[in-house]
């Protein structure tokens, strides 16, 4: 195995280093990816897309964060499938790992004496109190990140992961059961589906106004009292899309943790 690995690594490495020789220098603003490909004579073949993304995004969508605009609008189709990948991962883990029933056919978990919350268990008290204090703040912050993705870094994925992490923290600090009381399996599977439904549904809604899929400009009819209805429609639809993404990511991140930490039994975890 080591020999195969050595050969594969050497071959790939030399191939890649061979390619590096002709690269534009790192950080060159005139590289083809940044400014569009040029011939050796200096003649411009075509313009790079990212130039237009930078100059026109605010004009077209009223979203200052270009990354959010590209993510949710220009390449929204990609992002939809990215959400689908997350959803599929959640389902895949469910399909592979989840065990139903009392779990008598599987070997029992390790014997744990001090798993439950005992009065006087200082470690658990300190961690428990900190988490009790922090979890609402983390969730509030996650909501802020989701909603503020237009103006600063952030958005559905980041907010969703942070939100999911807050539930994971709850599961670690107390136990998996109390986290599942908050957010049961049925809930998170439904929430994940709802997230994709929001995303794809917004896209299909645009089709009802005789535009293409995900052409948010079609939703300008809902922007009644606005100076720039089409741009605002794009901006708000992006927010909606981000919320959909956040739903799915939150649910699936927690689902993955819950299944992984309890071997799919959803009883007691890490």
């Amino acid at each position, binding site marked *: 195995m080591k020999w195969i690995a050595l050969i594969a690594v050497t071959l790939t490495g030399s191939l890649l280093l061979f390619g590096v020789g002709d690269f534009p220098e790192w950080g060159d603003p005139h590289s083809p990816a940044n400014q569009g490909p040029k*011939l050796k004579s200096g003649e411009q073949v075509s313009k790079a897309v990212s130039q237009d993304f930078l100059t026109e995004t605010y004009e077209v969508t009223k979203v200052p964060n270009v990354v959010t605009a590209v993510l949710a609008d220009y390449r929204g189709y990609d992002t939809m499938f990215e959400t689908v990948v997350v959803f599929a991962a959640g389902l895949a883990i469910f399909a592979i790992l989840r065990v139903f029933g009392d779990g008598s056919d599987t070997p029992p978990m390790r014997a744990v004496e001090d798993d439950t919350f005992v009065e006087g268990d200082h470690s658990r008290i300190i961690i428990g109190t900190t988490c009790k204090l922090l979890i609402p703040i983390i969730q509030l912050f996650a909501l802020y990140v989701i909603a503020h993705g237009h103006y600063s870094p952030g958005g559905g994925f980041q907010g969703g992961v942070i939100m999911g992490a807050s539930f994971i923290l709850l599961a670690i600090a107390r136990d998996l059961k109390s986290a599942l009381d908050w957010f049961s399996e049925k809930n998170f599977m439904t929430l994940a589906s709802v997230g994709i439904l929001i995303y794809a549904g917004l896209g299909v809604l645009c089709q009802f106004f005789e535009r293409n899929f995900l052409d948010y400009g079609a939703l300008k009819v809902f922007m009644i009292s606005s100076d*720039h209805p*089409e741009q605002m429609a794009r901006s708000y639809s992006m927010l909606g899309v981000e919320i959909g993404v956040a739903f799915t990511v939150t649910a699936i991140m927690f689902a993955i943790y819950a299944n992984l930490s309890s071997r799919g039994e959803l009883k007691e975890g890490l």
Partner: protein
Amino acid sequence: MSDQFPILIVLAPLFGAVIIGLVGSRDHRVCMPVVLVALFTSLSAVIGTLTQVLETGPVDYFVGGWEPGKMAPGIHGPVEIAKGFGIQLRVDTLNGFLLLAIAIVSIFVSIFSIRRVNQKAASKTPQFYTLYLLLCVGLFGMTITGDAFNLFVLVEVTSLTSYALIAMGSKRRGTMAAFNYILMGTVGASFYLLGVGYLYLQTGSLNMAHIQEVLAANDFEIGRSKPVMVAFILIMVGIWIKMAFFPLYGWLPNAYSYCPSTSSCILAPLMTKISVYIMIRVMLSVFGWEWIFVDHVGWSDAVVILAVIAILAGSTLALAQRELKKMLCYLIVAEVGYMVGGAWLGDPERWGMSGAAYHILADAFMTLCLFLCAGIFAKKANATRIEHLSGMFKKMPLTMTGFVVGALAMIGIPPTCGFFSKFYLIRGGIEGGHWEFVIALIISSLVNVVLFFRIFEIAFFGAKPAEGHDHAHHDDEKDDHSTNDELTLLEREAPLRSLIPLFGTTAIIILLGVYNGQIVEWIRLTIKP
């Protein structure tokens, strides 16, 4: 409405998956109708798109309305949309037929899966169907997209769902195979992604048509730079890992032969073929014919030799297998060799590539047919090895008939489609001067003859006494209502729900063969414009 057909192909299964995810866990009976409705919607959308394509030429669809050249309203007046702004979907005659094949195969397999899934893991049925539909979404999306990065995302959708489908019902070896598949699949997808990155570095675009435009500009000045060459190699290696081409096929046989039969029925016919399609698409629509076969002549020779080795190795290894499914898996390796070799023949009339494109369709149905039979044998007669098939002609005459048709197509006997695809491939080989490829094809056909006639012999003259009846159909209708008779039914014919897809497939195999001239002519509209 009709202009929305291309996106509808992808959206129908996606919504189906979401609906099953929402309501499926409450009532399992919802799943099957939703799956069928979604897939039939896709099928009709595919047919609608394909008729448009045949009437008016390639159909483009710009997701989000970011159509190059159009004006988008900005705050300070309209803004012109540049090329590659949004994501483009493109249907032409090459992928139109493939979309049709995917839709038909997925419908057949879903019909085939009805009982199997309900019986095996009843509590995971909705999840299985959600994953199944998501897999269809991925396959449709991969075929239809015209954007290099979007292709990667959809490759990941298909990969993740197929990992789950392989790992979900299998034990021990199957799980290990799934793990290897995950590693190999991720490495392959990463190589593809890296290749796209190199292309992006040189061209500043992700749209396939735009990339080709840039690469071909000014007599391939940009196209001849080193990073583009490396990008091509990386993309090819990535796709070859995904399609189990010769030195990189290690993951395939175990993964496909130890997974549940429904999963193997959908994965084996489609996954490798779609990868081959992607290879042809990348060769034709991104790099272009001249770049590959005129600028880099030596490469095609090397790849054809690899393909020859793949064909010979696949056939030889298949000959050594005693397990039916594993034998079929090695045959897939050989078939991949046919298609890759055909696509790389480089004959000026492009018959090799046309043959490869036609063989994608043919092989999808041939493989489906054989895997359906293998699934039925395993389920009904508990026959996973070749010896177990003895006396099968008398026990299950109808299934065996389907198997014979599939096998004949695999060998390449007219009027099945396998004959004509081999015919086009050989024609390409002769015109391109690759005699080794022609010889390998003929040898492989002979090996297939040996393989399948051995099975026929066992199945026909097998020692096991025949206890079945000829009135299979009649018994089957009862089969649905009387589960008490399950034990005695074991010895009889497969249920109707398995036979419908099987005979649908055999019919298509023969139809594809009969109408091969017209189909190849249509396909060549794209391949040789």
